[in-house]
């Protein structure tokens, strides 16, 4: 099997408020044989916020990151739905505006960098399904998460606008989380909030609306029997996990639902100890969820 190797953009949050995502990503990638070359000097994508006042700066920052990956001759991997969406949007814009890109490249030349449209940019979720393969993942599962009911939570920017997120080439990208949940032996929970907004971008602007969004989705999934939600987006994680007690207070729903990162879920299935995946570093306790965890099988078949 071919080796998988990516330029790795960890994003701001995995290096800040969600360190468990960074740790579990590195751990799981290592186990899967996915080699990551971290871009430790790449800057924030702008998350759509810088874009509000300075779209040109945001474009330049992202082009710089793309160019760094191209300098390594590697496709780019991110571990954040927001990063994925922003990067895809910028990529689309730059491909359509060659003259504008030329101006950006003139600036990047200061650092000896150059971006040529056509870089593959993929979230870890897409890589799992499209590059790594779910059959291969299945074969490596040491501890099927049987008995766990897990709700997918995608994060807006990995889904929309689908036109620039590879809908034509990969029409099932809006089903990948369910497919991965299934591949690790858990049962995906179907609920209407899976593809909606977690509310994070509004947290500091309209706290109540933001927390209602988070609270509603958690409540709905919990009501339908979910033991946890899994997300490829650390920003969603922040609002659904760290803000869950606040969401509970605002919505008055009796909610208590662990929110786990995608690599954490994979890690559990691969037999990694929860502590190594930092599942103890969440605001909402994962204890109840982990109580459902079977012991790892002695030998993996396949």
């Amino acid at each position, binding site marked *: 099997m071919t080796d998988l190797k990516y330029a790795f953009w960890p994003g701001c949050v995995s290096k800040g408020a969600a360190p468990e995502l960074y740790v579990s990503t590195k751990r799981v990638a290592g186990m899967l044989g996915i080699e990551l070359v971290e871009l430790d000097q790449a800057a924030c994508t702008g998350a759509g916020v810088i874009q509000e006042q300075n779209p040109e700066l945001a474009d330049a920052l992202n082009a710089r990151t793309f160019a760094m990956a191209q300098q390594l001759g590697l496709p780019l991997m991110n571990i954040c739905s927001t990063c994925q969406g922003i990067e895809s949007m910028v990529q689309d814009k730059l491909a359509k505006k060659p003259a504008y890109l030329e101006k950006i490249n003139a600036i990047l030349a200061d*650092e000896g960098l150059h971006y040529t449209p056509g870089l593959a940019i993929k979230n870890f979720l897409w890589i799992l399904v499209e590059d790594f393969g779910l059959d291969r993942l299945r074969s490596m599962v040491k501890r099927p998460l049987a008995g766990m009911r897990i709700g997918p939570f995608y994060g807006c920017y990995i889904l929309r606008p689908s036109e620039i997120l590879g809908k034509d080439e990969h029409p099932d990208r809006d089903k990948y989380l369910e497919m991965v949940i299934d591949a690790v032996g858990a049962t995906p929970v179907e609920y209407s909030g899976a593809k909606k907004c977690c509310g994070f971008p509004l947290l500091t602007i309209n706290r109540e609306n933001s927390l209602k969004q988070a609270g509603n989705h958690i409540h709905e999934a919990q009501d339908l029997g979910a033991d946890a939600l899994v997300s490829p987006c650390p920003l969603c994680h922040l609002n659904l996990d760290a803000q869950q007690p606040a969401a509970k207070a605002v919505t008055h729903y009796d909610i208590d639902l662990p929110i786990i990162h995608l690599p954490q879920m994979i890690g559990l299935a691969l037999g990694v100890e929860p502590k190594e995946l930092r599942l103890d570093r969440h605001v909402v306790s994962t204890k109840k969820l982990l109580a459902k965890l079977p012991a790892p099988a002695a030998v993996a078949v396949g």
Partner: protein
Amino acid sequence: MKVKLKVRRSDPEKAAVGYSQYTIDAPEHTTLLDALIQVREYEDGTLALRCSCRSAICGSCSMRVDGRARLACRAKIIALTRGDEEHEVTVEPMGNMPVIKDLVVDMESFWSKIRQVDPYLQPEGPEPEGEYRVPNESMIDLTHTMNCIMCGACVSDCTVLEVDKNFIAPAALAKAYRFAADPRDGHSHERLEKLSEYSGIWDCTRCNMCVEVCPKGVAPMDRILQLREMAIEEKISGNSGVRHTNIFTKSITDGGRLNEVWMVPGSVGIFNIPRMMKEIPGALRMLRVGKLPVGQAIPPGAPGSHKMKGMDRVRNLVRKAATLKPSKPKVKSDD
């Protein structure tokens, strides 16, 4: 081609609400609207839906199709089912608006929000003898927004409206952009001030849902972001939205990556004591599990604040990116 439909039914004159299932035979390239009309005309005359032009200009036939708002006349059955004749297409009325009957919703709340944004041109001064002289680029830009047929799809699926019925919502905000950005309008600043108030442009959560469901490429959220950019340019501040984007940008231009610790105080205003108090329990919980990166405790821009490796190069880029800003076209005519 066999077409299977599952249609949400409700009738105020009857208590029952549920789904009706229909299987019809239709031509290969049939749209969902063709199929529904066929049902209504030959299978079940009691089915209520709005439709008129059949070519996506009247905006009557928006409904939820397999969970997503769209125009029935633009939804090809074969695309919905991916050619699987056993796939049952689920058809429901739009969301975020009360249902009158079956697929017909009451759009009064939609229109009242449109009216809220003063949706008519307000030129300054007397009308010119001939036409207003304005750049074609701005007219083409506005034409994209005028493409809006007020079908309600974006409002149906707006995720903020779900939790806050006062949110002005995408359609009206896109309409507002159409006037705020019209060089003939004389009240752009006042419009932006009003739109910056609560329930306005800063309350959009940027989820891209409206962009995704809009059948006319209006991309309402992009228009909202343009309004934000215009509001910032007009120096309309004093709301958390502007502070949020300012502190965020400062965090990146200073440290290369996001400084989460300062996002909340930076956005709500550190002297907003009651609001800050609300954040304390959450902050303590995060601190307890190691989710508050204490390395970021120094505010962006202050000496010793958190910085990424190679920051001097990022700063160079920030400085030079300022030259990328397009110069604004001349917007006012002399007549």
